[in-house]
């Protein structure tokens, strides 16, 4: 009996992604075609991964008379760099027909997972030369466990100002934000000061890129004097509660009596108040001792479009 020989070809149905993160999975679809149009459905493909792992899958008939295809899940190794998978259709002979083998190499670059940071509860102003605390959280894009990893806070000159170590449990309300509270010493110079938090993300089972974030705080002299601000409505003279009072970095919020007390050092400031639907111009304030001021804010109601209109 004469054996007929057919060549075969294997190709990706769609281009594979150029890169994926280390340890992740990606699906690729390959098609195998017989030169004589034979149905190769049910025949195996072998997949040789970048390591020693080897797996097998089966071709399904996708385009009768033309090609068979298989969707193959490739798991990237936990190493960074180009990774190659070899997908092979082994030679096969049956019913007097021999199909030649064919092979395809798929190379995908694996990259580290990302990380990101949050920095919060930063007091401002901070008092020059005095300690203060901030909270720092780190997150892995792969939701990796980051407990015990170090974070470092650098000052504007790049010097390490403080270090922290991520706690054992993520911050409540977050998916996997590992965090710590870090104590810093405010610089001796007044004014806006900046720091950066750096997270190296090393020594994790999955490779991760490090990351950094910046934050700022106003550095001030110690407050010496009490500024009492009373905010009233311009026409009714009624006190207004929950008004935000701002004098540069110094702030307060009015109570139901319309009063906010703000501790401040000597100096000249612009006093601003803010509440939705109220208007009040800013004004300069000279702080030389304890001081009380009254601010009139004009109620400019913007009608609530959800207001009820009834008889």
């Amino acid at each position: 009996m004469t054996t007929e020989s057919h060549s075969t070809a294997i190709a990706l149905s769609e281009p594979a992604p150029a890169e994926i993160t280390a340890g992740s999975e990606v699906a690729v679809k390959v098609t195998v075609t017989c030169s004589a149009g034979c149905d190769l459905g049910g025949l195996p493909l072998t997949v040789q991964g970048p390591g020693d792992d080897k797996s097998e899958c089966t071709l399904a008939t996708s385009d009768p008379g033309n090609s068979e295809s298989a969707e193959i899940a490739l798991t990237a190794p936990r190493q960074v760099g180009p990774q190659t998978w070899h997908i092979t259709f082994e030679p096969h002979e049956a019913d007097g027909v021999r199909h030649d083998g064919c092979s395809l190499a798929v190379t995908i670059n694996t990259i580290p997972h990302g990380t990101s940071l949050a920095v919060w509860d930063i007091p401002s102003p901070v008092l020059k030369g005095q300690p203060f605390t901030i909270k720092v959280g780190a997150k892995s894009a792969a939701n990796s466990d980051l407990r015990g990893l170090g974070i470092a806070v650098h000052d504007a000159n790049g010097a390490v100002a403080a270090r922290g170590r991520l706690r054992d449990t993520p911050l409540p309300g977050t998916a996997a934000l590992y965090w710590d509270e870090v104590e810093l010493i405010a610089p001796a110079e007044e004014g806006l000061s900046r720091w950066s938090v750096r997270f190296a993300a090393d020594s994790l089972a999955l490779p991760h890129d490090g990351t950094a974030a910046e934050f700022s705080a106003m550095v001030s002299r110690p407050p010496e004097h009490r500024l009492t601000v009373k905010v009233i409505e311009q026409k009714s003279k009624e006190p207004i509660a929950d008004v935000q009072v701002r004098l540069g970095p110094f702030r307060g919020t009015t109570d139901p009596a319309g009063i906010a007390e703000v501790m401040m050092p000597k100096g000249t400031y612009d006093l601003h108040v803010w509440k939705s639907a109220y208007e009040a111009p800013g004004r300069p304030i000279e702080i030389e001792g304890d001081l009380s001021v009254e601010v009139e804010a004009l109620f400019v109601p913007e009608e609530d479009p959800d207001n009820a209109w009834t008889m």
Partner: protein
Amino acid sequence: MSTQDRNNKNGAPPALSRRSFLSKGAAAGVGAAALTGATAANAQAQTRWDLTADVVVIGAGVGGLPAAITARDNGASVIIVEANHDIGGRGMLSGGRLHLGGGNAIQQRHNLKDSADQVYADWVRFDSNSSRYSDRDLVRVFADENVPTYNFLVENGVEFIDKMIGPEQASTIPRTFVTVEWHVPSEIVAPRRNRNGSGLVRRLEASARKKGVQILLRHKMTRIIREQQNAGRVLGITAMAGTNPVNIKANKGVIIATGGHTGNVNFRRMFDPRLTEEYQQACEPWVHQGADGELAAMDIGGSLWATACQTRDGGAAITKTRHIGCRWGYSSLVYETDSPMFQLARATGLTVEDWQDVIFVNQVGKRFWNEVDGSYNFFAACMAWHGDKSKLNGGGPIWAIFDADGAAREKWNTKPPNVDPDGFFFSADTISELAGKIKNPHQKQPMSGAVLQETVERYNSFVVAGADADFKKPKPLHKIEKPPFYAAWTTPILHDTLTGLRTNTNSEVVDTRGEVIQGLYAAGECQGGFAQHGLARCLAFGRVAGRHAASRTT
């Protein structure tokens, strides 16, 4: 009775009911026939009319209902076709505020002097962009129709709250009056949200039905039939009832009252090319304003008019979203979970009390304007080009970014059904991660985590310093720093249609050569020439159109 059942109020199968009611003299048979280039005789001969009425009104909203009632009052038989499953159009979801003065009964009770002449004088003011671009011939008609329209509404059962609002828009005295909300919660599309316009349209619907107006729901007009494509009188319309064409003959006239064009991207971009697909339309998904009437009229020669009204950079043509984190966040409209629209709306949104609690970023993650501003400068900034070479028009999505502290200040519950996590609301543990999560059909490119983080860090430094060095936001108050972080859809929403078909003072549609298209009328937002926000002009010109159409000889 459910709103879906309203089509069968006569208690008989709709087709049988329609024929027995109005089409005694009509030719038998169903089906539409092509009319291109047909002569008058040919057009009539080739069209097999399924139904006939003296006046056919397209749209059962704030323009169409008064048109139909007025035509009926003047002796005409009337059919309304309505594409939706219920009547009302956008009026159903409006606040029911009518800008109708002129010395009406409420004004008189409150000893407020007003007159038609004063209404006219106010609404042709050159120093208000609400009025300076309007066609003064139409304003004069509107002014004269103020009191008659108010009286018409009262006579047809519409109830008003005995309060005056204003002055608003170009008016110099209070002229805004609010209708009483409909009393049946199941027949209000957005129940418990003070949609007083429901009382206007439901009461007009009741009056229209009582007077014998036939309302055909789920009948979408697809064509206005004219003797010749660009000549002769209008004969009727074709409407689709599902997949079935229904030809309706109008012995006297067809009144277009289909609403505006804000939902039709191609159409609205005739007036402002920036208004690309990402901008939503107010009152969706209840009503889609597809410019159907304008297009059908333009197909047979109709002209647009006073197009400057649309781009006057004032009023409510474009509005700031107030309910964020959902697709449809129009300022005064919330679909609660018991609304029949909730399944489509999918979220109620987070209502913003203080824009200090968020920052806005564009699709590349950058701030672009002072967030507490709601002016047309803000809208221009929203629609600005920001370097995307693949999208030169429109500004892409706008996202409100806030943190856990901001959510706490606003007392927001950031879970469904308040937000729509399917493309319109995202949360993450860090700002950088948040950027990567933003995926939306209109977000044409991924937002860079590094860019968004830099934006937030910079803004936070402004809060610390007490001044917004980039956009002069007054007193930036709150840092965005405490996890988790949120991104909520805040892209501006389009509301007013302020231009449309050219009409004369009888509401008769005029063609591109300045000639009246005999038998064709337009009223409501599809009518051009009068840039007034709200319901009043729709009601007034609906009445004008109905009255004139009924007076035509067959």
